[in-house]
C-alpha cells in the first residue's frame, strides 16, 4: 500500500477498508446472515413496541384533551381548592376571551353535587352543565353516546307532564339507577341561595365510559337548566379551551394569563373566590402527563435491552470471525498493515452488519407497524367497554402509531450499540502479536 500525500488519501483508505470489510463479511455468509437476522428481529421488536406505545400515548393525550378536558382550562382558585359553588368566573369573561383571542375555542361549564333519584333508587350525582353549542367545538363528550340522542334542550311536553329539560347520564350511573333514555330523573340539590333546588328531568341519552368518576356520578345538562335548578344567575366554574394546534400550547397559555390579568384590572374579582387560574392539560391530568414521561423512558430502556441482546450475538460473531482470522491478521501486520487500520476494518465489518440489519429491519418493521396502525390489536371481545388506565378509559382496540422519526432513532440505536459491541473484537485484533499468531 503506497501512501499518497494528497488530502484524499485517508478517504481512499477508508473506502478501501470498507470494501475489504464487505468482502470479509461474505466469507462466512451463513454466520453473517444469522447475526443480521438477530439484529433485524431486535429492531422490529423495538419498532413495533415504539409504535404501539406511541399509539397508546397519542390516544391518551387525545382522550385526556379531546373527550372532556380540552387543552387549557380556567377556574377560580377557590373552585380548584374545594369546588366552591360560588367561585365563578364572570359570565363576560367568555365573550372577552372569544373576542380577544379568536383562535381559541372556548366552552363554559358549571358543576354541582346533587342527589339523583329514579322511581326506585337514589344516588349521589355530579351535575355538569355545558353549552350544547360551544361544547362540540372543544370536546367530543356529547358525541360519546351509548344510547339515545345528544339533546340537552327541553323535551316536548306530553299530556301527563309539562316539558322538562333533557339530561345525559354517565354509563355506570345509568346502570346503577336502572334508567334508560326516555326515563324520568329527579335531581335534588342545595341551590346557591340556600334553598332546595329540585326538578324533574328526562334522560335523553346514556354516555359511553369517559372517566371512572364521571361514569359513576355524571349528569350532563344545559347551562340554562342548571341556572334554573341552582338559582345561580351568572358566571361559570370552568372555561375549557381547545387550540387548533397543540404546538402553540405554551404561548396560548401565556396569552390567556395576560388576558385574565387585564380583565382582573378592569373588573377586580371578589376575594373569596380567589384569582382566575389557567392550567394546561398536563397540569389538569398530571397522572397522564407523568405516565407519558414514564412510557418514553421505558421505551428507551426497553430499546437498549432488546438491541443490546441482539448485539451480544453480533459480538459473538465478530469475536469468532476475528479469532478465525488471527493468522491472516498476523500476516497483514507482518507486512506493514497499521494496527489502527485493522481496528477500523473490524469496526467497518460490524457497522456494515448493523447497517444491513437496520435497512432490513426498517423494511420489514415498517409494514408491520403500518398494519398495527391501521388494524390494531382488538380486545373488544373480552373488553367491550375498553379498559381504564390511570383514570382514562381506552378503546378496546390498541392501535399503533408510526412515527418515522422513531424508526430512524431505533436504527441509530442499533448502529450505535453494534459499534459499541464491535470495540472488543476490534481491540482484540489490534493487539495481536504477529510473531505469536504466525507461529
Amino acid at each position, binding site marked *: 500500500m503506497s501512501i499518497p500525500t494528497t488530502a484524499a488519501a485517508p478517504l481512499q483508505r477508508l473506502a478501501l477498508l470498507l470494501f475489504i470489510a464487505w468482502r470479509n463479511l461474505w466469507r462466512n455468509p451463513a454466520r453473517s446472515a444469522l447475526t443480521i437476522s438477530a439484529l433485524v428481529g431486535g429492531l422490529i421488536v423495538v419498532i413495533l413496541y415504539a409504535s404501539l406505545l406511541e399509539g397508546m400515548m397519542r390516544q391518551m393525550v387525545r382522550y385526556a384533551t379531546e373527550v372532556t378536558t380540552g387543552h387549557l382550562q380556567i377556574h377560580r382558585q377557590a373552585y380548584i381548592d374545594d369546588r366552591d359553588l360560588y367561585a365563578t368566573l364572570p359570565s363576560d369573561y367568555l365573550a372577552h376571551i372569544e373576542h380577544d383571542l379568536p383562535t381559541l375555542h372556548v366552552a363554559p361549564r358549571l358543576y354541582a353535587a346533587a342527589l339523583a333519584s329514579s322511581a326506585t333508587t*337514589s344516588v*349521589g350525582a355530579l351535575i355538569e352543565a355545558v353549552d350544547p353549542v360551544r361544547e362540540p367545538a372543544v370536546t367530543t363528550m356529547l358525541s360519546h353516546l351509548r344510547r339515545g340522542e345528544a339533546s340537552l334542550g327541553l323535551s316536548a311536553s306530553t299530556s301527563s307532564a309539562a316539558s322538562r329539560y333533557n339530561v345525559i347520564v354517565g354509563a355506570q350511573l345509568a346502570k346503577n339507577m336502572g334508567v334508560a333514555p326516555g326515563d324520568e330523573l329527579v335531581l335534588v340539590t342545595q341551590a346557591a341561595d340556600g*334553598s332546595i333546588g329540585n326538578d324533574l328531568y328526562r334522560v335523553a341519552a346514556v354516555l359511553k365510559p369517559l372517566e371512572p368518576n364521571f361514569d359513576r356520578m355524571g349528569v350532563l345538562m344545559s347551562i340554562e337548566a342548571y341556572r334554573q335548578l341552582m338559582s345561580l344567575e351568572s358566571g361559570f366554574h370552568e372555561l375549557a379551551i381547545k387550540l387548533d394546534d397543540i404546538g402553540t400550547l405554551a404561548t396560548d397559555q401565556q396569552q390567556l394569563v395576560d388576558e385574565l390579568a387585564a380583565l382582573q384590572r378592569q373588573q377586580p374579582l371578589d376575594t373569596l373566590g380567589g384569582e382566575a387560574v389557567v392550567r394546561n392539560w398536563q397540569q389538569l391530568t398530571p397522572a397522564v402527563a407523568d405516565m407519558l414521561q414514564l412510557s418514553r423512558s421505558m421505551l428507551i430502556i426497553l430499546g437498549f435491552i432488546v438491541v443490546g441482546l441482539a448485539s451480544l450475538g453480533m459480538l459473538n460473531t465478530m469475536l469468532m470471525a476475528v479469532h478465525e482470522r488471527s493468522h491472516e491478521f498476523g500476516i497483514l501486520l507482518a507486512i506493514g498493515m497499521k494496527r489502527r487500520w485493522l481496528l477500523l476494518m473490524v469496526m467497518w465489518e460490524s457497522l456494515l452488519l448493523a447497517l444491513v440489519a437496520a435497512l432490513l429491519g426498517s423494511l420489514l418493521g415498517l409494514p408491520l407497524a403500518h398494519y398495527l396502525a391501521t388494524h390494531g390489536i382488538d380486545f373488544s371481545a373480552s373488553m367491550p367497554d375498553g379498559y381504564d388506565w390511570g383514570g382514562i378509559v381506552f378503546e378496546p382496540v390498541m392501535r399503533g402509531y408510526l412515527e418515522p422519526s422513531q424508526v430512524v432513532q431505533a436504527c441509530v440505536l442499533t448502529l450505535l450499540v453494534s459499534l459499541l459491541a464491535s470495540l472488543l473484537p476490534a481491540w482484540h485484533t489490534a493487539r495481536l502479536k504477529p510473531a505469536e499468531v504466525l507461529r
Partner: protein
Amino acid sequence: MLTPKVQVKGAVGLALLCLLLATALPVEAIEVGELVRHIDSLWRGETSHAAMTMTVKTRRYERSMTMEAWSRGKGYSLVVIRQPIKDRGIATLKVKENIWNYLPKINRVTKVPSSMMSGSWMGSHFTNDDLVKESTFEDDYDSQLSFTGSRDGQSIYELTALPKPNAAVVWGKVVMVIDQTTLAPYNARYYDEEGTLVRTIRFDHNSVIDGRSVPLHLYLQPADKPDESTEIDYSAIEFGVPLEASFFSLQNLQQRH
C-alpha cells in the same frame, strides 16, 4: 352503676340500704344509661309535635326557614317546611332506617340513601342525621360520665360518647355538658375520627315542659368556619300528642303540605 351487691333481707334492710345510699352518694348521682336516655328523648318524648325556625348564616347568604315536626319514638319522624314560600311543603320523613324527601314542586318522593346521612340538611350546618335523629346515644354510642362536679359555677355532668364498633355514625366522639339539676344540656362538642373538633352546639332558653327542662334554642357553630352558624328556635313543642305509626306514611307525606 352504683348499686352495691348487698344481700338485703327484709324491708328494714332495704330501707337501711336506701338510707345508706342516700347519704353515701350525692343526690345528683345518676345512672349513665338513664342520662343518655333522657338526652336522647329530650326533644322527642314518646311522641312530639313542634314548630321551629331555623336560621342559617353562611359567608354567602343568610336565610330562615319555619318548620313543623312530628315524632314518635325513635323510629318515626316527619319534618315539613312552612316558610319560605319557595321551599314550602318540602318534607322529610323517617320511618325506621329509611328516609324520604317529598318535593311538592315536582310532586315526587325521593329516598335519601344512607350514604347521605352526613350530608347537609336543607343547606344548614345540621346533617340529615341530626334532623331525623337516626342515631341515638343509647344505640350507637358507648357513653360514660367523664366529669361530674362544678365547672364555671355550674354543677354539671360531662358525658363522653364514643361510637360503638359497628355503629354507622358520623362522629368520632361527642362530649356533652349537662346541668345536674335540670338535666338540660349546656353544650355539645362533636369530634371527627382524628379527634378534631368539628362543631359545637350550644343550648339555652330552657323551658319546663311535662316536668322536663327542654332547651328551646340551639346554636350550632362549625369549628372550621367561625363566621357561619345555624340556629334553631322552637316556638312550640308538646309531648305525648296522639300520633299513630300510620301518620308517618308516604301517603301522608304527600298530603301534608
